[in-house]
Protein backbone atom coordinates (compact mmCIF):
# COMPACT_ATOMS: atom_id res chain seq x y z
CA UNK A 1 0.00 0.00 0.00
CA UNK A 2 2.82 2.38 0.71
CA UNK A 3 4.23 1.70 -2.75
CA UNK A 4 0.89 2.74 -4.22
CA UNK A 5 0.94 5.96 -2.24
CA UNK A 6 4.51 6.64 -3.27
CA UNK A 7 3.97 6.10 -6.99
CA UNK A 8 0.61 7.82 -7.02
CA UNK A 9 1.89 10.92 -5.27
CA UNK A 10 5.04 11.04 -7.38
CA UNK A 11 3.09 10.92 -10.62
CA UNK A 12 0.59 13.48 -9.41
CA UNK A 13 3.27 15.88 -8.29
CA UNK A 14 5.68 15.55 -11.20
CA UNK A 15 3.53 14.19 -14.03
CA UNK A 16 2.69 17.40 -15.89
CA UNK A 17 6.14 18.86 -15.37
CA UNK A 18 7.98 15.75 -16.54
CA UNK A 19 5.77 15.39 -19.60
CA UNK A 20 6.44 19.04 -20.44
CA UNK A 21 10.11 18.26 -20.07
CA UNK A 22 9.97 15.20 -22.30
CA UNK A 23 7.94 16.78 -25.06
CA UNK A 24 9.44 20.22 -25.30
CA UNK A 25 12.80 20.28 -23.57
CA UNK A 26 14.54 16.93 -23.75
CA UNK A 27 15.27 17.22 -27.47
CA UNK A 28 17.07 20.53 -27.28
CA UNK A 29 20.34 20.47 -25.33
CA UNK A 30 20.36 24.22 -24.84
CA UNK A 31 16.96 24.10 -23.18
CA UNK A 32 18.07 21.45 -20.73
CA UNK A 33 20.97 23.65 -19.72
CA UNK A 34 18.65 26.62 -19.19
CA UNK A 35 16.40 24.40 -17.08
CA UNK A 36 19.25 23.38 -14.84
CA UNK A 37 20.45 26.98 -14.62
CA UNK A 38 16.96 27.98 -13.51
CA UNK A 39 17.02 25.29 -10.84
CA UNK A 40 20.43 26.53 -9.70
CA UNK A 41 19.25 30.12 -9.31
CA UNK A 42 16.23 29.00 -7.30
CA UNK A 43 18.57 27.11 -5.04
CA UNK A 44 20.72 30.19 -4.52
CA UNK A 45 17.71 32.32 -3.64
CA UNK A 46 16.53 29.66 -1.17
CA UNK A 47 19.98 29.58 0.36
CA UNK A 48 19.94 33.29 1.00
CA UNK A 49 16.48 33.20 2.52
CA UNK A 50 17.47 30.29 4.76
CA UNK A 51 20.55 32.18 5.88
CA UNK A 52 18.48 35.15 6.97
CA UNK A 53 15.94 32.88 8.68
CA UNK A 54 18.68 30.92 10.44
CA UNK A 55 20.33 34.04 11.78
CA UNK A 56 16.99 35.42 12.97
CA UNK A 57 16.21 32.13 14.74
CA UNK A 58 19.54 32.14 16.50
CA UNK A 59 18.89 35.65 17.77
CA UNK A 60 15.30 35.01 18.80
CA UNK A 61 13.75 33.31 21.77
CA UNK A 62 13.79 29.60 20.95
CA UNK A 63 11.20 28.66 23.56
CA UNK A 64 8.34 30.71 22.23
CA UNK A 65 6.39 28.66 19.69
CA UNK A 66 4.41 31.58 18.30
CA UNK A 67 7.57 33.59 17.76
CA UNK A 68 9.14 30.69 15.90
CA UNK A 69 6.05 30.39 13.75
CA UNK A 70 6.11 34.10 13.06
CA UNK A 71 9.76 33.89 12.05
CA UNK A 72 8.92 31.01 9.75
CA UNK A 73 6.24 33.07 8.05
CA UNK A 74 8.71 35.90 7.69
CA UNK A 75 11.14 33.42 6.14
CA UNK A 76 8.52 32.29 3.65
CA UNK A 77 7.69 35.83 2.57
CA UNK A 78 11.36 36.74 2.25
CA UNK A 79 12.07 33.65 0.19
CA UNK A 80 9.21 34.43 -2.19
CA UNK A 81 10.49 37.96 -2.68
CA UNK A 82 14.04 36.72 -3.27
CA UNK A 83 12.78 34.20 -5.80
CA UNK A 84 11.17 37.00 -7.75
CA UNK A 85 14.24 39.22 -7.73
CA UNK A 86 16.50 36.48 -9.05
CA UNK A 87 15.00 36.08 -12.51
CA UNK A 88 14.87 39.84 -12.84
CA UNK A 89 18.60 40.13 -12.32
CA UNK A 90 19.62 36.99 -14.15
CA UNK A 91 17.45 37.33 -17.21
CA UNK A 92 18.75 36.86 -20.68
CA UNK A 93 16.65 37.75 -23.66
CA UNK A 94 16.82 34.36 -25.30
CA UNK A 95 13.24 33.35 -25.96
CA UNK A 96 13.63 29.87 -24.57
CA UNK A 97 15.11 30.90 -21.28
CA UNK A 98 11.90 32.58 -20.20
CA UNK A 99 9.82 29.45 -20.09
CA UNK A 100 12.66 27.33 -18.88
CA UNK A 101 13.89 29.31 -15.94
CA UNK A 102 10.31 29.34 -14.70
CA UNK A 103 10.07 25.60 -15.15
CA UNK A 104 13.49 25.11 -13.60
CA UNK A 105 12.36 27.13 -10.61
CA UNK A 106 9.23 25.04 -10.47
CA UNK A 107 11.04 21.72 -10.67
CA UNK A 108 13.46 22.64 -7.93
CA UNK A 109 10.79 24.16 -5.73
CA UNK A 110 8.53 21.17 -6.13
CA UNK A 111 11.36 18.73 -5.61
CA UNK A 112 12.56 20.42 -2.45
CA UNK A 113 9.05 20.56 -1.04
CA UNK A 114 8.00 17.02 -1.75
CA UNK A 115 10.97 14.68 -2.16
CA UNK A 116 11.47 13.99 1.51
CA UNK A 117 7.75 13.46 1.95
CA UNK A 118 7.75 10.98 -0.91
CA UNK A 119 10.72 9.16 0.56
CA UNK A 120 8.88 8.87 3.85
CA UNK A 121 5.73 7.62 2.18
CA UNK A 122 7.55 4.47 1.04
CA UNK A 123 8.57 3.58 4.53
CA UNK A 124 6.65 1.43 6.94
CA UNK A 125 3.57 3.08 8.30
CA UNK A 126 1.70 6.17 7.27
CA UNK A 127 0.51 9.50 8.61
CA UNK A 128 -2.49 10.19 10.79
CA UNK A 129 -2.27 8.20 13.97
CA UNK A 130 -2.08 11.22 16.26
CA UNK A 131 -5.06 12.97 14.75
CA UNK A 132 -3.18 14.63 11.87
CA UNK A 133 -4.90 14.64 8.54
CA UNK A 134 -4.73 11.38 6.61
CA UNK A 135 -4.57 13.27 3.37
CA UNK A 136 -1.10 14.65 4.08
CA UNK A 137 0.64 12.87 1.22
CA UNK A 138 -2.08 13.44 -1.32
CA UNK A 139 -2.52 17.11 -0.57
CA UNK A 140 1.24 17.62 -0.68
CA UNK A 141 1.35 16.02 -4.11
CA UNK A 142 -1.46 18.16 -5.50
CA UNK A 143 0.03 21.28 -3.98
CA UNK A 144 3.39 20.48 -5.53
CA UNK A 145 1.86 20.01 -8.97
CA UNK A 146 0.12 23.35 -8.69
CA UNK A 147 3.29 25.07 -7.52
CA UNK A 148 5.40 23.70 -10.37
CA UNK A 149 2.92 24.78 -13.02
CA UNK A 150 2.45 28.12 -11.30
CA UNK A 151 6.17 28.81 -11.34
CA UNK A 152 6.22 28.22 -15.06
CA UNK A 153 3.27 30.55 -15.68
CA UNK A 154 4.74 33.19 -13.39
CA UNK A 155 8.03 32.97 -15.27
CA UNK A 156 6.34 33.64 -18.60
CA UNK A 157 4.26 36.54 -17.35
CA UNK A 158 7.13 38.01 -15.33
CA UNK A 159 9.60 38.09 -18.21
CA UNK A 160 7.04 39.39 -20.62
CA UNK A 161 6.15 42.11 -18.15
CA UNK A 162 9.81 43.01 -17.69
CA UNK A 163 10.46 43.15 -21.42
CA UNK A 164 7.41 45.22 -22.26
CA UNK A 165 7.75 47.32 -19.10
CA UNK A 166 4.31 46.25 -17.92
CA UNK A 167 4.96 46.65 -14.22
CA UNK A 168 1.39 45.78 -13.37
CA UNK A 169 1.98 42.27 -14.67
CA UNK A 170 5.16 41.97 -12.65
CA UNK A 171 3.41 43.19 -9.51
CA UNK A 172 0.56 40.77 -10.14
CA UNK A 173 3.02 37.87 -10.35
CA UNK A 174 4.69 38.79 -7.08
CA UNK A 175 1.35 39.36 -5.40
CA UNK A 176 -0.11 36.05 -6.54
CA UNK A 177 3.04 34.20 -5.47
CA UNK A 178 2.72 35.73 -2.01
CA UNK A 179 -0.97 34.92 -2.00
CA UNK A 180 -0.40 31.26 -2.81
CA UNK A 181 2.31 30.92 -0.19
CA UNK A 182 0.18 32.59 2.43
CA UNK A 183 -2.74 30.34 1.53
CA UNK A 184 -0.62 27.39 2.55
CA UNK A 185 -0.45 28.79 6.07
CA UNK A 186 -3.96 27.45 6.45
CA UNK A 187 -2.88 23.84 6.03
CA UNK A 188 -4.16 21.33 7.23
CA UNK A 189 -7.47 22.88 6.22
CA UNK A 190 -6.81 21.69 2.73
CA UNK A 191 -10.02 22.96 1.19
CA UNK A 192 -9.22 26.56 1.96
CA UNK A 193 -5.67 26.28 0.64
CA UNK A 194 -5.86 23.93 -2.32
CA UNK A 195 -9.01 25.21 -4.01
CA UNK A 196 -7.95 28.89 -4.20
CA UNK A 197 -4.49 27.77 -5.32
CA UNK A 198 -5.97 25.86 -8.22
CA UNK A 199 -8.18 28.81 -9.13
CA UNK A 200 -5.13 31.08 -9.18
CA UNK A 201 -3.28 28.49 -11.25
CA UNK A 202 -6.05 28.36 -13.81
CA UNK A 203 -6.12 32.13 -14.18
CA UNK A 204 -2.36 32.38 -14.39
CA UNK A 205 -2.35 29.62 -16.97
CA UNK A 206 -4.81 31.42 -19.18
CA UNK A 207 -2.92 34.70 -18.77
CA UNK A 208 0.40 33.05 -19.61
CA UNK A 209 -1.14 31.36 -22.64
CA UNK A 210 -2.27 34.69 -24.04
CA UNK A 211 1.01 36.35 -23.12
CA UNK A 212 2.99 33.71 -24.98
CA UNK A 213 1.03 34.40 -28.13
CA UNK A 214 -1.65 31.81 -27.89
CA UNK A 215 -5.23 32.38 -28.90
CA UNK A 216 -8.39 30.37 -29.27
CA UNK A 217 -7.74 30.06 -32.99
CA UNK A 218 -4.23 28.64 -32.45
CA UNK A 219 -5.57 26.25 -29.88
CA UNK A 220 -8.24 24.97 -32.24
CA UNK A 221 -5.73 24.50 -35.06
CA UNK A 222 -3.36 22.68 -32.80
CA UNK A 223 -5.96 20.35 -31.37
CA UNK A 224 -7.34 19.36 -34.75
CA UNK A 225 -3.81 18.74 -36.11
CA UNK A 226 -4.12 21.41 -38.75
CA UNK A 227 -1.42 23.73 -37.44
CA UNK A 228 1.31 23.62 -40.10
CA UNK A 229 4.05 25.25 -38.01
CA UNK A 230 3.52 22.83 -35.18
CA UNK A 231 3.49 19.83 -37.53
CA UNK A 232 6.65 20.88 -39.35
CA UNK A 233 8.45 21.49 -36.12
CA UNK A 234 7.61 18.01 -34.91
CA UNK A 235 8.19 16.06 -38.14
CA UNK A 236 4.70 14.75 -38.22
CA UNK A 237 3.47 14.18 -41.79
CA UNK A 238 0.19 15.87 -42.51
Amino acid sequence: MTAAVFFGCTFIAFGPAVSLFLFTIAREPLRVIFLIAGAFFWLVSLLMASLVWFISVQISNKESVSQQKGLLIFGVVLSVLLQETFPASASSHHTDSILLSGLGFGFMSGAFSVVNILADSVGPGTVGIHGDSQHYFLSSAFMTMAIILLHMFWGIIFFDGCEKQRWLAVAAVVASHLLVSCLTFQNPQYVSSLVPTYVVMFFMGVWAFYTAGGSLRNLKLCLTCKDKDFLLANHRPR
Partner: protein
Amino acid sequence: MSVSDSDEELYNERTALVPAQNPAVPSYRPDPELSPTEDSDSKMPDPGAEPEDEEEEPLKYGAKHVIMLFVPVTLCMAVVVATIKSVSFYSEKTTQQIYTPFSEDTPDVGRRLLHSVLNTAIMISVIVVMTVLLVVLYKYRCYKFIHGWLILSSLMLLFWFSFMYLEVFRTYNVAVDYPTVAMVIWNFGAVGMLCIHWKGPLQLQQAYLIVISALMALVFIKYLPEWSTWVILGAISVYDLVAVLSPKGPLRMLVETAQERNEPIFPALIYSLNGGRAEPQSPRLRPVTEEELEEEGVKLGLGDFIFYSVLVGKAAATGGDWNTTLACFVAILIGLCLTLLLLAIFRKALPALPISIAFGLIFYFSTDFLVQPFMDNLANHQFYI
Protein backbone atom coordinates in the same frame (compact mmCIF):
# COMPACT_ATOMS: atom_id res chain seq x y z
CA MET B 1 26.88 12.04 -44.91
CA SER B 2 29.56 10.53 -47.17
CA VAL B 3 28.83 9.77 -50.76
CA SER B 4 31.24 7.07 -51.76
CA ASP B 5 29.98 3.62 -52.80
CA SER B 6 32.98 1.80 -51.49
CA ASP B 7 31.89 2.68 -47.98
CA GLU B 8 29.13 0.10 -47.97
CA GLU B 9 31.60 -2.71 -48.69
CA LEU B 10 33.75 -1.72 -45.76
CA TYR B 11 30.91 -1.68 -43.28
CA ASN B 12 30.54 -5.09 -41.71
CA GLU B 13 30.71 -6.55 -38.25
CA ARG B 14 34.37 -5.84 -37.84
CA THR B 15 34.18 -2.19 -38.68
CA ALA B 16 31.06 -1.75 -36.58
CA LEU B 17 33.15 -2.33 -33.49
CA VAL B 18 34.82 0.80 -32.28
CA PRO B 19 38.41 0.29 -31.21
CA ALA B 20 39.35 1.46 -27.79
CA GLN B 21 42.21 3.54 -29.20
CA ASN B 22 41.00 7.06 -29.53
CA PRO B 23 41.89 9.01 -32.64
CA ALA B 24 45.01 11.17 -32.63
CA VAL B 25 43.24 14.34 -31.67
CA PRO B 26 44.48 16.55 -28.87
CA SER B 27 42.17 15.89 -25.98
CA TYR B 28 39.90 18.50 -24.41
CA ARG B 29 40.07 20.55 -27.55
CA PRO B 30 37.15 21.01 -29.94
CA ASP B 31 38.43 21.75 -33.42
CA PRO B 32 38.51 25.53 -33.80
CA GLU B 33 38.41 25.56 -37.59
CA LEU B 34 35.29 23.60 -38.09
CA SER B 35 32.05 25.33 -38.86
CA PRO B 36 29.39 23.74 -36.76
CA THR B 37 26.98 22.05 -39.08
CA GLU B 38 23.78 20.59 -37.78
CA ASP B 39 23.13 16.89 -37.91
CA SER B 40 21.37 15.44 -40.91
CA ASP B 41 18.17 14.95 -38.95
CA SER B 42 17.84 18.56 -37.86
CA LYS B 43 14.59 20.39 -38.10
CA MET B 44 13.76 22.41 -41.18
CA PRO B 45 14.74 25.97 -40.35
CA ASP B 46 12.09 28.60 -40.07
CA PRO B 47 12.79 30.99 -42.98
CA GLY B 48 12.15 34.10 -40.96
CA ALA B 49 14.49 33.10 -38.16
CA GLU B 50 17.59 32.22 -40.18
CA PRO B 51 19.87 35.12 -39.14
CA GLU B 52 19.14 34.29 -35.52
CA ASP B 53 19.86 30.62 -36.18
CA GLU B 54 23.32 31.39 -37.52
CA GLU B 55 24.27 33.09 -34.28
CA GLU B 56 22.82 30.26 -32.29
CA GLU B 57 24.63 27.48 -34.16
CA PRO B 58 27.85 27.57 -32.09
CA LEU B 59 25.75 27.83 -28.94
CA LYS B 60 23.68 24.80 -29.90
CA TYR B 61 26.80 22.86 -30.93
CA GLY B 62 28.40 23.58 -27.58
CA ALA B 63 25.19 22.75 -25.75
CA LYS B 64 25.04 19.38 -27.47
CA HIS B 65 28.47 18.51 -26.07
CA VAL B 66 27.50 19.69 -22.63
CA ILE B 67 24.44 17.44 -22.61
CA MET B 68 26.45 14.54 -23.95
CA LEU B 69 28.57 14.84 -20.85
CA PHE B 70 25.66 15.56 -18.51
CA VAL B 71 24.06 12.22 -19.35
CA PRO B 72 26.91 9.90 -18.30
CA VAL B 73 27.75 12.02 -15.26
CA THR B 74 24.09 11.95 -14.19
CA LEU B 75 23.91 8.19 -14.79
CA CYS B 76 27.00 7.56 -12.70
CA MET B 77 25.71 9.72 -9.86
CA ALA B 78 22.28 8.10 -10.07
CA VAL B 79 23.77 4.61 -9.80
CA VAL B 80 25.86 5.63 -6.80
CA VAL B 81 22.98 7.38 -5.00
CA ALA B 82 20.55 4.53 -5.68
CA THR B 83 23.06 2.02 -4.33
CA ILE B 84 23.86 4.07 -1.25
CA LYS B 85 20.23 4.61 -0.40
CA SER B 86 19.19 0.99 -0.79
CA VAL B 87 22.25 -1.10 0.14
CA SER B 88 23.36 -0.31 3.66
CA PHE B 89 26.69 -2.11 3.15
CA TYR B 90 28.26 0.98 1.63
CA SER B 91 27.25 3.27 4.49
CA GLU B 92 28.28 0.94 7.30
CA LYS B 93 31.14 1.76 9.56
CA THR B 94 34.25 -0.05 8.54
CA THR B 95 37.61 -1.03 10.00
CA GLN B 96 40.47 1.41 9.84
CA GLN B 97 42.24 1.27 6.53
CA ILE B 98 45.92 1.60 5.82
CA TYR B 99 45.59 4.73 3.70
CA THR B 100 43.69 6.58 6.40
CA PRO B 101 45.31 5.46 9.62
CA PHE B 102 44.09 8.32 11.80
CA SER B 103 40.78 7.40 13.30
CA GLU B 104 37.89 9.86 13.45
CA ASP B 105 36.31 8.34 16.51
CA THR B 106 37.21 11.15 18.89
CA PRO B 107 34.49 13.44 20.27
CA ASP B 108 36.84 16.42 20.20
CA VAL B 109 36.18 18.51 17.08
CA GLY B 110 39.68 19.90 16.75
CA ARG B 111 41.29 16.49 17.06
CA ARG B 112 38.91 15.02 14.52
CA LEU B 113 39.69 17.81 12.10
CA LEU B 114 43.40 17.30 12.59
CA HIS B 115 43.07 13.57 11.94
CA SER B 116 41.10 14.13 8.77
CA VAL B 117 43.69 16.63 7.51
CA LEU B 118 46.44 14.13 8.20
CA ASN B 119 44.52 11.36 6.44
CA THR B 120 44.08 13.69 3.49
CA ALA B 121 47.77 14.48 3.40
CA ILE B 122 48.56 10.77 3.19
CA MET B 123 46.01 10.10 0.44
CA ILE B 124 47.04 13.09 -1.63
CA SER B 125 50.71 12.23 -1.40
CA VAL B 126 49.93 8.70 -2.56
CA ILE B 127 48.01 10.13 -5.52
CA VAL B 128 50.78 12.61 -6.35
CA VAL B 129 53.43 9.89 -6.25
CA MET B 130 51.39 7.63 -8.52
CA THR B 131 50.72 10.43 -10.99
CA VAL B 132 54.37 11.46 -11.15
CA LEU B 133 55.35 7.80 -11.61
CA LEU B 134 52.88 7.47 -14.46
CA VAL B 135 54.20 10.59 -16.19
CA VAL B 136 57.83 9.46 -15.79
CA LEU B 137 56.99 6.04 -17.22
CA TYR B 138 55.18 7.65 -20.12
CA LYS B 139 58.03 10.04 -20.83
CA TYR B 140 60.54 7.21 -20.96
CA ARG B 141 58.19 5.18 -23.17
CA CYS B 142 57.70 2.26 -20.78
CA TYR B 143 54.43 1.48 -22.48
CA LYS B 144 54.35 -2.18 -21.52
CA PHE B 145 54.68 -1.32 -17.85
CA ILE B 146 51.88 1.24 -18.08
CA HIS B 147 49.62 -1.15 -19.94
CA GLY B 148 50.28 -3.84 -17.39
CA TRP B 149 49.47 -1.43 -14.57
CA LEU B 150 46.25 -0.31 -16.22
CA ILE B 151 45.23 -3.89 -16.92
CA LEU B 152 45.85 -4.88 -13.31
CA SER B 153 43.79 -1.99 -12.00
CA SER B 154 40.89 -2.62 -14.36
CA LEU B 155 41.04 -6.30 -13.41
CA MET B 156 40.70 -5.29 -9.78
CA LEU B 157 37.81 -2.95 -10.55
CA LEU B 158 35.92 -5.29 -12.80
CA PHE B 159 36.27 -8.47 -10.80
CA TRP B 160 36.88 -7.68 -7.16
CA PHE B 161 34.80 -4.53 -6.74
CA SER B 162 31.87 -5.93 -8.67
CA PHE B 163 32.02 -9.04 -6.51
CA MET B 164 31.73 -6.70 -3.54
CA TYR B 165 28.75 -5.07 -5.19
CA LEU B 166 26.92 -8.37 -4.98
CA GLU B 167 26.19 -7.40 -1.40
CA VAL B 168 23.06 -6.05 -2.99
CA PHE B 169 21.78 -9.62 -2.92
CA ARG B 170 22.06 -9.65 0.83
CA THR B 171 19.97 -6.49 1.06
CA TYR B 172 17.14 -7.94 -0.96
CA ASN B 173 17.47 -11.36 0.63
CA VAL B 174 18.08 -13.11 -2.68
CA ALA B 175 19.75 -16.50 -2.46
CA VAL B 176 22.35 -17.09 -5.18
CA ASP B 177 24.73 -20.02 -5.56
CA TYR B 178 28.45 -19.68 -6.14
CA PRO B 179 28.61 -21.22 -9.67
CA THR B 180 26.11 -18.64 -10.91
CA VAL B 181 28.04 -15.86 -9.25
CA ALA B 182 31.28 -17.13 -10.76
CA MET B 183 29.80 -17.22 -14.24
CA VAL B 184 28.21 -13.80 -13.96
CA ILE B 185 31.34 -12.14 -12.59
CA TRP B 186 33.55 -13.89 -15.15
CA ASN B 187 31.43 -12.77 -18.06
CA PHE B 188 30.99 -9.24 -16.77
CA GLY B 189 34.68 -8.84 -16.11
CA ALA B 190 35.94 -10.45 -19.32
CA VAL B 191 33.67 -8.41 -21.57
CA GLY B 192 34.62 -5.30 -19.62
CA MET B 193 38.33 -5.92 -20.13
CA LEU B 194 37.79 -6.41 -23.85
CA CYS B 195 35.68 -3.30 -24.22
CA ILE B 196 37.99 -1.05 -22.28
CA HIS B 197 41.35 -2.25 -23.54
CA TRP B 198 40.64 -3.58 -26.99
CA LYS B 199 37.52 -3.15 -29.10
CA GLY B 200 33.83 -2.97 -28.45
CA PRO B 201 30.65 -1.14 -29.38
CA LEU B 202 30.91 2.47 -28.31
CA GLN B 203 27.91 2.44 -26.02
CA LEU B 204 29.07 -0.69 -24.25
CA GLN B 205 32.48 0.93 -23.70
CA GLN B 206 30.83 4.01 -22.28
CA ALA B 207 28.55 1.90 -20.09
CA TYR B 208 31.50 -0.02 -18.67
CA LEU B 209 33.43 3.17 -17.96
CA ILE B 210 30.41 4.56 -16.11
CA VAL B 211 30.04 1.31 -14.15
CA ILE B 212 33.67 1.17 -13.06
CA SER B 213 33.57 4.83 -12.04
CA ALA B 214 30.49 4.12 -9.95
CA LEU B 215 32.12 1.06 -8.34
CA MET B 216 35.26 3.02 -7.51
CA ALA B 217 33.21 5.87 -6.06
CA LEU B 218 31.25 3.40 -3.92
CA VAL B 219 34.47 1.92 -2.58
CA PHE B 220 35.77 5.38 -1.73
CA ILE B 221 32.53 6.23 0.04
CA LYS B 222 32.71 3.04 2.06
CA TYR B 223 36.34 3.15 3.10
CA LEU B 224 37.03 6.84 3.62
CA PRO B 225 35.98 8.27 6.98
CA GLU B 226 33.43 11.07 6.83
CA TRP B 227 35.36 14.23 7.48
CA SER B 228 38.37 12.93 5.61
CA THR B 229 36.23 12.54 2.51
CA TRP B 230 35.31 16.21 2.46
CA VAL B 231 38.85 17.37 3.06
CA ILE B 232 40.14 14.96 0.40
CA LEU B 233 37.62 16.29 -2.12
CA GLY B 234 38.79 19.83 -1.49
CA ALA B 235 42.45 18.89 -1.63
CA ILE B 236 42.13 16.88 -4.81
CA SER B 237 40.41 19.77 -6.58
CA VAL B 238 43.34 22.01 -5.67
CA TYR B 239 45.74 19.31 -6.84
CA ASP B 240 43.85 18.94 -10.12
CA LEU B 241 44.03 22.68 -10.67
CA VAL B 242 47.76 22.75 -10.04
CA ALA B 243 48.56 19.58 -11.95
CA VAL B 244 46.74 20.61 -15.09
CA LEU B 245 47.41 24.32 -15.28
CA SER B 246 50.86 24.94 -13.86
CA PRO B 247 53.71 24.58 -16.40
CA LYS B 248 55.45 21.79 -14.52
CA GLY B 249 52.25 20.05 -13.48
CA PRO B 250 52.35 16.29 -14.14
CA LEU B 251 49.01 16.11 -15.90
CA ARG B 252 49.88 18.99 -18.16
CA MET B 253 53.15 17.32 -19.07
CA LEU B 254 51.27 14.12 -19.80
CA VAL B 255 48.85 15.84 -22.16
CA GLU B 256 51.61 17.79 -23.89
CA THR B 257 53.81 14.73 -24.36
CA ALA B 258 50.88 12.82 -25.82
CA GLN B 259 50.17 15.68 -28.20
CA GLU B 260 53.81 15.94 -29.28
CA ARG B 261 53.93 12.27 -30.06
CA ASN B 262 50.52 12.45 -31.69
CA GLU B 263 49.26 9.58 -29.56
CA PRO B 264 46.00 9.07 -27.73
CA ILE B 265 46.03 9.14 -23.96
CA PHE B 266 45.23 5.83 -22.29
CA PRO B 267 41.72 4.85 -23.28
CA ALA B 268 41.13 3.05 -20.02
CA LEU B 269 41.23 6.32 -18.10
CA ILE B 270 39.14 8.59 -20.29
CA TYR B 271 35.49 8.79 -21.22
CA SER B 272 35.13 9.98 -24.79
CA LEU B 273 31.94 10.85 -26.54
CA ASN B 274 32.70 9.45 -29.96
CA GLY B 275 35.87 7.44 -29.57
CA GLY B 276 37.41 6.20 -32.76
CA ARG B 277 34.79 6.99 -35.31
CA ALA B 278 37.25 8.65 -37.65
CA GLU B 279 40.35 6.51 -38.07
CA PRO B 280 43.34 8.40 -39.36
CA GLN B 281 45.33 5.16 -39.56
CA SER B 282 43.15 3.62 -42.26
CA PRO B 283 43.77 4.84 -45.82
CA ARG B 284 41.51 7.71 -46.70
CA LEU B 285 38.90 6.73 -49.25
CA ARG B 286 37.07 9.99 -49.11
CA PRO B 287 37.83 13.40 -47.73
CA VAL B 288 37.07 13.80 -44.07
CA THR B 289 33.72 15.48 -43.84
CA GLU B 290 33.04 18.29 -41.46
CA GLU B 291 30.64 16.09 -39.57
CA GLU B 292 33.40 13.62 -38.83
CA LEU B 293 35.55 16.37 -37.39
CA GLU B 294 32.60 17.47 -35.34
CA GLU B 295 32.22 13.95 -33.96
CA GLU B 296 35.56 14.05 -32.16
CA GLY B 297 34.20 15.80 -29.17
CA VAL B 298 35.13 16.56 -25.64
CA LYS B 299 36.73 13.99 -23.37
CA LEU B 300 36.35 13.74 -19.61
CA GLY B 301 38.66 11.78 -17.34
CA LEU B 302 37.28 8.96 -15.23
CA GLY B 303 38.68 10.53 -12.09
CA ASP B 304 36.23 13.37 -12.55
CA PHE B 305 33.31 10.96 -12.76
CA ILE B 306 34.55 9.21 -9.63
CA PHE B 307 34.95 12.30 -7.49
CA TYR B 308 31.65 13.87 -8.57
CA SER B 309 29.94 10.64 -7.59
CA VAL B 310 31.85 10.49 -4.30
CA LEU B 311 30.56 13.95 -3.42
CA VAL B 312 26.95 13.21 -4.26
CA GLY B 313 27.10 9.74 -2.77
CA LYS B 314 28.56 10.97 0.50
CA ALA B 315 25.87 13.66 0.63
CA ALA B 316 23.29 10.92 0.21
CA ALA B 317 24.93 8.64 2.77
CA THR B 318 25.26 11.14 5.58
CA GLY B 319 22.08 12.68 6.88
CA GLY B 320 19.77 10.66 4.69
CA ASP B 321 18.28 13.79 3.26
CA TRP B 322 17.24 14.10 -0.37
CA ASN B 323 17.32 17.90 -0.52
CA THR B 324 21.05 17.96 0.11
CA THR B 325 21.64 15.29 -2.52
CA LEU B 326 19.59 17.20 -5.09
CA ALA B 327 21.36 20.46 -4.30
CA CYS B 328 24.80 18.85 -4.73
CA PHE B 329 23.68 17.23 -7.97
CA VAL B 330 22.52 20.53 -9.48
CA ALA B 331 25.63 22.31 -8.25
CA ILE B 332 27.93 19.76 -9.88
CA LEU B 333 26.09 19.94 -13.18
CA ILE B 334 26.28 23.71 -13.22
CA GLY B 335 29.99 23.52 -12.40
CA LEU B 336 30.50 21.12 -15.30
CA CYS B 337 28.60 23.50 -17.56
CA LEU B 338 30.83 26.39 -16.53
CA THR B 339 33.96 24.28 -17.01
CA LEU B 340 32.88 23.38 -20.54
CA LEU B 341 32.17 27.02 -21.23
CA LEU B 342 35.71 27.88 -20.15
CA LEU B 343 36.94 25.04 -22.33
CA ALA B 344 35.21 26.55 -25.33
CA ILE B 345 36.81 29.90 -24.56
CA PHE B 346 40.36 28.78 -23.78
CA ARG B 347 40.58 25.68 -25.99
CA LYS B 348 43.15 23.77 -24.00
CA ALA B 349 43.13 21.04 -21.39
CA LEU B 350 41.34 22.21 -18.26
CA PRO B 351 40.79 20.62 -14.86
CA ALA B 352 37.18 19.52 -14.53
CA LEU B 353 37.18 19.07 -10.76
CA PRO B 354 37.71 22.48 -9.13
CA ILE B 355 34.58 24.40 -10.13
CA SER B 356 32.14 21.52 -9.72
CA ILE B 357 33.60 20.28 -6.46
CA ALA B 358 33.73 23.83 -5.09
CA PHE B 359 30.06 24.40 -5.92
CA GLY B 360 29.21 20.95 -4.64
CA LEU B 361 30.96 21.46 -1.30
CA ILE B 362 29.47 24.93 -0.80
CA PHE B 363 26.00 23.68 -1.54
CA TYR B 364 26.40 20.56 0.57
CA PHE B 365 27.40 22.41 3.71
CA SER B 366 25.02 25.31 3.26
CA THR B 367 22.06 23.07 2.44
CA ASP B 368 22.85 20.76 5.31
CA PHE B 369 23.19 23.49 7.91
CA LEU B 370 20.97 26.31 6.70
CA VAL B 371 18.40 25.13 4.22
CA GLN B 372 17.56 21.81 5.82
CA PRO B 373 16.21 23.15 9.15
CA PHE B 374 14.21 25.76 7.24
CA MET B 375 12.69 23.18 4.88
CA ASP B 376 12.02 20.76 7.72
CA ASN B 377 10.07 23.40 9.58
CA LEU B 378 8.15 24.32 6.45
CA ALA B 379 7.32 20.69 5.74
CA ASN B 380 6.08 20.19 9.29
CA HIS B 381 3.51 22.90 8.84
CA GLN B 382 3.06 22.20 5.15
CA PHE B 383 3.98 25.72 4.16
CA TYR B 384 5.01 26.15 0.56
CA ILE B 385 7.34 28.76 -0.85
